[in-house]
């Protein structure tokens, strides 16, 4: 073996390593990323709707037949909220992703639209997290001294769940903040694409 044998010369060895066999195709990469964005948005929406339906079910079962006007109003508000948000999001659930080679739509345009769709989804954080956050705040308020005048009789049971409610409120607040941050990052990417 000569002195300049690649096995003795790290840089020569490094630079003469075998070529990768698999191809890197930019179109595939962009489409894959678009598909990932679509899938994650869709699954998040479906999970959110599932959670909302569960919440509606529990709320109606628990507070619907109570006869307390305030509770029935709260129950109705929850149902309306779920109906409105589900209606707003229906297009994002069922709309199939546009084909990248659809008429006059370039891969970049296809990708940009998916980014916009995800950004809009993330910006809707308050639609899903807001009522939960509000509910947590109301429970905390009741626990703290019932400014609404309705919490005296239920203050004692709330004591037991208050740590959970506070944790839920913090988690919800963090979720909202995280979603807005992700939305800003996506907006930045969209802006970069539009500068051309």
């Amino acid at each position, binding site marked *: 073996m000569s002195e300049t044998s690649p096995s003795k010369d*790290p*840089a020569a060895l490094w630079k003469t390593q075998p070529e990768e066999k698999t191809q890197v195709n*930019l179109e595939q990469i962009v489409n894959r990323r678009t598909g990932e964005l679509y899938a994650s948005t869709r699954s998040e929406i479906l999970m959110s709707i599932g959670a909302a339906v569960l919440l509606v079910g529990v709320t109606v079962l628990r507070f619907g037949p109570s006869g307390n006007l305030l509770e029935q109003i709260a129950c109705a508000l929850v149902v309306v909220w779920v109906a409105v948000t589900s209606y707003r999001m229906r297009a994002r659930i069922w709309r199939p992703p546009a084909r990248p080679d659809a008429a006059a739509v370039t891969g970049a345009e296809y990708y940009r639209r998916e980014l916009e769709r995800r950004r809009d989804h993330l910006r809707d954080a308050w639609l899903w997290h807001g009522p939960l956050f509000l509910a947590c705040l109301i429970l905390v308020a009741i626990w703290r001294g019932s400014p609404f005048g309705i919490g005296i009789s239920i203050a004692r049971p709330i004591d037991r769940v208050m740590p959970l409610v506070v944790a839920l409120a913090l988690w919800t607040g963090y979720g909202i903040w995280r979603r807005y941050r992700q939305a800003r990052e996506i907006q930045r990417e969209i802006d970069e694409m539009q*500068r051309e």
Partner: protein
Amino acid sequence: MNNVSRNRTTPASPKRDQLYATAVREFGRALDRLAAGYEADPEKRHDLRQDIHLQLWRSFEGFDGRCSLKTWTFRVAHNTAVSYVQRERRKNTRLVGLEEIESTAPSGEREPDIDRERALQQLSEFIRQLKPLDRQIMISYLEEMDAAAIAEITGLSPANVGMKIHRIKSILSSRFLEEKRYV
């Protein structure tokens, strides 16, 4: 020859596409080697290469010519690969620095001629255990970039890079027999 392919539905942006095509033509093979320095598993490496190409393509929208195309390309590629390493780090063993390796480098235990494939495997494994910044410097050094170019890519001072290169040379010479081509 690089094997990046595109077709007519690929996103169109003349400036970005042109820069990307040039970068891939000139540095495509080096980018493949760079990915090999960050990931051993072929399938994961393919994903990493795709990520690098995607980020590179996206990045050229902001390319303003204040640094060379080569510097820009490797900066983006390394940054993407480093992010990948950080993501994968939870599953991997801990990474070490050049200083630590140098202090534990075997002395006088050089192996005789080993076959090329095994030597490459050893070199790759060695690179992949390095901390990200040291890995950037090592890979750039093996790509025969000088200290100034490596400094521009990594953001370290040329003096600092020079010191690291000195360590790299010492480690390589102790582990891979002769190491004399580079300054």
